[in-house]
């Protein structure tokens, strides 16, 4: 482009494409040298100072060559990209630390023994009871909230008209924001009033989790049902299929991949809930297979308690955290794959 076409923008010229990269390299070298003079350079400090130097230098160079408007644009680009990189630091460091610390005690034994008869500094023992407990609690919560959530979503999309539907829509949204600890308090208050003050069980925790999970299921299923084109419904009605069969055989079947994804993400969200389980299902050292009676260990609570205990407990906590993060990541991954490969073409 010549300078005559856009005189305002291209008043003085254009930075070559390689310029930002050269400035980037220069900024890091300068930061390293600067920090060696002042104190010991670490990766974090070099990255921080280098990043700031880079942003300032690109802005200055661009302002000198390209004028203030372009310079501002480049400044915005560097800041926006920088923000994204900054947000990745917690994710990367978290995954890294969970893998590194969790690996020390992670073994087949850890996954297949419980904490019966483990005390003091013994390195044996594992999370089997907590894994079983997590499956019980999350399983019961899912049994309650998946049907409830799917039917509510069907109501909102296929039947809901007027005031009631509007109220439910808003309240489902508000319900997504209920703090997990409040859900735990609700389950506690409910069961202590109905059953008795000393009652603790996995079912109690499952009720708390169901309160948290249902709105998430409703939201995602509703979104999926709304994506089903109306033509499909109308074609079905035209063939004389009753409404309920249309919903079951046409609408739900079309949206099944999306629904599966939504449900799995909802499960992944509640499987790591700690606070409500802390006060309802509690913790115990042995495997408990009765979900309606007695305390039951769950992975998040197990991790928290072991971490608070210190010593070998910290290592156990990291191994439990690794197990938990692995389950959650797996659920998320499978959910994404399901939605990518099984959703009907044309609606995604």
């Amino acid at each position: 482009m010549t300078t005559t076409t856009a005189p305002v923008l291209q008043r003085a010229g254009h930075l070559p494409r390689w310029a930002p990269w050269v400035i980037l390299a220069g900024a890091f070298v300068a930061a390293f040298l600067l920090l060696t003079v002042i104190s010991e350079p670490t990766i974090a400090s070099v990255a921080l100072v280098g990043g700031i130097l880079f942003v300032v230098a690109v802005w200055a160079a661009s302002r000198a060559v390209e004028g203030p408007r372009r310079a501002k644009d480049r400044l915005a680009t560097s800041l926006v990209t920088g923000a994204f990189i900054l947000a990745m630091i917690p994710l990367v460091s978290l995954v890294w630390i969970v893998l590194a610390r969790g690996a020390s005690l992670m073994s087949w034994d850890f996954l297949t023994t419980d904490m019966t008869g483990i005390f003091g500094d013994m390195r044996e023992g594992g999370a089997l009871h907590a894994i079983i407990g997590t499956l019980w609690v999350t399983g019961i919560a899912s049994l309650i909230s998946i049907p409830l959530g799917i039917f509510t979503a069907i109501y909102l999309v296929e039947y809901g008209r007027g005031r009631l539907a509007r109220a439910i829509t808003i309240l489902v949204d508000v319900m997504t924001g209920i703090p997990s600890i409040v859900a735990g308090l609700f389950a506690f208050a409910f069961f202590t009033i109905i059953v008795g003050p000393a009652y603790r069980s996995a079912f109690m925790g499952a009720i708390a989790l169901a309160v948290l999970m249902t709105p998430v299921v409703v939201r995602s299923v509703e979104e999926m049902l709304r994506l089903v084109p109306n033509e499909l419904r109308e074609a079905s009605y035209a063939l004389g299929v009753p409404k309920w069969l249309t919903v079951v055989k046409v609408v739900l079947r079309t949206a099944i991949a999306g629904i599966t994804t939504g449900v799995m993400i909802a499960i992944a969200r509640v499987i790591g809930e700690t606070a409500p389980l802390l006060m309802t299902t509690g913790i115990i050292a042995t495997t408990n297979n009765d979900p309606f009676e007695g305390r039951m260990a769950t992975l998040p609570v197990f991790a928290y308690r072991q971490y608070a205990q210190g010593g070998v407990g910290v290592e156990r906590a990291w191994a439990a955290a690794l197990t938990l993060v692995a389950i959650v990541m797996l659920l998320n991954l499978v959910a994404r794959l399901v939605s990518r490969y099984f959703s009907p073409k044309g609606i995604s």
Partner: protein
Amino acid sequence: MATVTTPDAPPGRAPAPRLSDAPGRMGNKVFAGVSTGAGITILIILAAVAGFLILRSWPAITASQEDYDTVGFMQGKGLWAYIAPLIFGTLLSSLIALIIAVPLSIAIALFISHYAPRRAAQGLGYLVDLLAAIPSVVYGMWGMSWLVPQLQPFFAWLSGTLGFIPLFADFQAPAKNIMSAGIVLAVMILPIITATIREVFLQTPRLHEEASLALGSTRWEMIRMAVFPFGRSGIISASMLGLGRALGETMAVLMILSPGFLINFYLLKPGQHQSIAANIANQFPEASGLGADVLIATGLALFAITFGVNLLARWIIARRAEFSGAN
């Protein structure tokens, strides 16, 4: 949606055989009933949450000062004097989280919607969403063993150079202060804010953007003139959703913050503040009788605050959806 309405038979007469033979009539009724029932169950659950919390906290609300004195952890304070610092701590930590997370989220959402290569954008979005999937207890452990040691030298420097401002005064070595808790909260609410803002930014009418670019603006000017005005209410409501999340977050605060029951702004001093949620999780296992009721009353306060914040956020979103040109 096409609806085939069959007129109901007039009362007092047997329905015409043609109508009763209509296929799936029974099924339709049952299915509609079950669906409506599920919807109403949601309302009942929400009402039950509020109802049972009020029921259990009523003894605490109506108790006298002598009764409060029997509860060990209240240290002779009345209910209001006990809750006030907790509400303050909750708001303060959430506010810190919000101040850090909102600008970052706007930038990240912009990066995903307008800066990243289009093919990579979705994958990058998933990466941010993964942050939301990580259990809060793992955030707490990460905060204690990775973030707090990293923040220590920075806080020490901050307190050393800017310590004359009360905000940054009196830093003490393990950084178990409200600032660290706020930073971890910021990381935890980042995904929900980013996801909401990203949706809004992606809805910016393409014609506005292209018109702006055609007039010769740079990408940043286009964003300032076309994307931000369109997304302003989205940013506000996303921030409030994030606020709702931060207010109720338990484990991270419980594990990182060294608790105290004071109202002040010493951000770097440990042992000054505590949030409602963390306090409940901390005291609940040992509490019984009136003590448990008092904690449930604080939970009721938390419920009311988050309910209000979320309702307001959703109201802003809904209002925007009605008037925006995109829908």
